[in-house]
């Protein structure tokens, strides 16, 4: 069925001769597969000008359309550009004042800590539930698998702008379905329960929304990956008397490690950058209690019209993100080299 494309996608190398797919480009590390080694490998392919010509359009596009704005953004972060300066088009150079103000403000650090905790919790929830649902998919009959995959694809396909609107309404204080569900289940106090009472409760609802939208991606990919594992491995492990838990850690996890690596990497970026979901839910409120870094920057920029300050926030955000992700970069680059 249609929904399995991810499975197919992931199983590309399985359809193709498995070992050559992964390892033909570089000499394999161990001697056991020497037979498969291709002496020509990459060296047989032309070097010279061609690769540069091929990457040129991409490089030029990225430099002009992303690199240049990023540099402008850095410049902006050293300027005072508020409503007045934007209109007169005369930015005022103020050096590191924006950074000084930010780094010396406890509000900023609160938001930083909140962003990291929020990202960590979200990614954990997404990866955990996504993995479990992926395993569930792998263990289902054909029909049920189709039903569940379709449900996941529906959630996945729903545009963020639309899903935020729906979620806001589901958790509405007066007309929300969530309160109705709680009442129907017999819980007291849900006559007009405010799900956005505090910053934390707001972030919990946002986590539900983000998890709901992101889990399908992880689950379907997880399932796709599992199909490449091959049932004989589980069976064998089970024969040896291993528990489900042990099977996962001893058999599935090592195989799926690259998958977890890359998916976690993407989810961290996506959650950390999540803006529409956080902002649209409660505009960073109540009392700025649910502001994450991108929302903080947006409120400071588009809301308060302190564009220089907002640029400084965004620059610091990028720097922090890169710092946090640097070990990921190293891992992935290493993987790159092995290919």
């Amino acid at each position: 069925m249609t929904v399995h494309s991810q499975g197919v996608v992931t199983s590309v190398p399985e359809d193709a001769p498995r070992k050559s797919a992964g390892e033909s480009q570089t000499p394999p590390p161990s001697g056991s597969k020497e037979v498969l080694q291709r002496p020509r490998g990459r060296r047989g392919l032309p070097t010279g000008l061609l690769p540069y010509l091929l990457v040129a359009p991409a490089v030029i596009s990225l430099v002009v359309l992303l690199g240049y704005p990023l540099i402008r953004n850095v410049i902006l972060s050293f300027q005072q550009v508020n409503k007045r300066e934007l209109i007169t088009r005369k930015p005022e150079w103020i050096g590191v004042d924006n950074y000084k103000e930010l780094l010396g403000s406890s509000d900023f650090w609160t938001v930083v800590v909140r962003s990291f905790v929020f990202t960590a919790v979200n990614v954990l929830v997404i990866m955990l539930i996504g993995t479990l649902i992926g395993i569930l998919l792998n263990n289902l009959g054909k029909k049920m698998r189709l039903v569940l995959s379709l449900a996941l694809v529906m959630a996945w396909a729903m545009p963020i702008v639309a899903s935020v609107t729906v979620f806001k309404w589901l958790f509405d204080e007066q007309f929300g379905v969530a309160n109705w569900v709680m009442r129907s289940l017999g819980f007291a106090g849900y006559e007009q329960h405010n799900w956005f009472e505090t910053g934390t409760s707001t972030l919990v609802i946002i986590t539900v929304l983000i998890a709901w939208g992101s889990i399908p991606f992880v689950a379907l990919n997880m399932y796709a990956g599992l199909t490449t594992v091959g049932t004989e491995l589980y069976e064998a492990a089970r024969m040896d008397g291993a528990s489900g838990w042990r099977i996962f850690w001893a058999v599935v996890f090592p195989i799926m490690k690259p998958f977890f690596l890359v998916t976690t990497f993407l989810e961290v970026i996506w959650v950390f950058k999540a803006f529409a979901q956080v902002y649209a839910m409660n505009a960073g409120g109540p009392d700025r209690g649910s502001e994450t870094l991108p929302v903080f920057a947006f409120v400071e920029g588009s809301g308060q019209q302190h564009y220089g300050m907002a640029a400084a926030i965004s620059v610091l955000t990028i720097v922090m993100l890169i710092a946090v992700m640097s070990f990921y970069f190293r891992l992935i680059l290493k993987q790159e080299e092995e290919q």
Partner: protein
Amino acid sequence: MKRKLIAAIGVAGMMVSVAACGSDSKSGGDTKTDGPKTVTVWVMDGSAPEPWIQAVNKEFEAKHKDVKVDVKIQKWDGIQEKVTTALSEDTPPDVIELGNTQTAGYAATGGLAELTEDKAKLGADGWNKGMLPSAELDGKLYAAPWWAANRVVVYDKKAFKDAGVTPPKTRDEWIAGLEKIKSTSKGKTQPLYLPGQSWYVLAGFIWDEGGDLAVKDGDNWKGTLADPKSIEGMNFYKKLQSYSTAPKDKDEATPQQSTDVVPKGGIASWIGLGWEAGGAIKAIEDAKGKADFGYFPIPGKTADKPGSVFFGGSNLAIAERSKNKDLAKEWLALAAGKDQMAKYAQATEGAALPNHDSAAFKAPAGTFAEAMGQAASVGKLTPITEGWANVETNPNPIKEYMTKVLKGQDPKAAAEAADKEITERINKK
């Protein structure tokens, strides 16, 4: 394989045509300046009744052949940034409606054309003296006042009658009445729908006590919510809000009280503007119901004077970068002139007070406009300084303060925190 190649070529071709589309539309815009001129007018959603503005444009276009007026209705959401960026562009809208609490802020940026010399042409002599200050900065005129409105209490006549309550004249009577509705309806009816963040309503109570939101302190301004008088105002708001089950952390627009809340019934009274009352009536009638509303000004501390109210409204300004300043001024003189404003007042049925006293709508007894008129004499504005606009932007510290107090925090501490934020924002240029 061939198919895919063709597809790829088709793609490239498409990009060219897409790019061509972009440049087409732009050159289309450029030619406008050569041919017939266009005056672009931005008005906010709900400000200008459609038939009225069409009549204004017809009269204007009859006077100026070859000139077209292009009216663009703007949404409130994100309007500040939209106006700011628009004023920074080479071809901004010529005439822009600005909230009266925002005008000074834009005037200070240099984005608005100064209109001091055009006062006579615009008919400034007849303007409402209460509305004019919001259009000025440092003694110079930057906009024409357009309309103003204030809030009154809208009540369900039947609910009041059932409880044996008549419209109150003082705060004490008001509270007593709400208490009575509460006890007689046994919780079925909400005596007053008042969300926690109706900060314009709070401002009135603060003014009643002799306090203010912010005052001038030497060259700077400072927030004064922590002033004992201002806290008195908040205390009264809290008392009033205890008669409502409305959310404490929302304002009157989320959910929209007039169309989403009141029409559902079970609400004896609420505080709203003219268009809100109209919207509620329409929503009720759409659902095949019947609205029987009465109106009274927000009661004051004593019977001789109604409670102070925030004088909300709009001004019409001209962009400094406008390419058609003279035409824009002519349009402004026409639209904000006495004759058209009289028609405007008529078209809004008195829900909006026109900029000329003499253009005012003679409100029949028992209407919203009548109740609004009674309170107009005690209408007040937010502090008139360019920094005030910064205070109002979300997250609005006054709103956060209100929610905190309503949820039981110490008013003094919460007010001091809010004052700190207000002081910081109001002095930012």
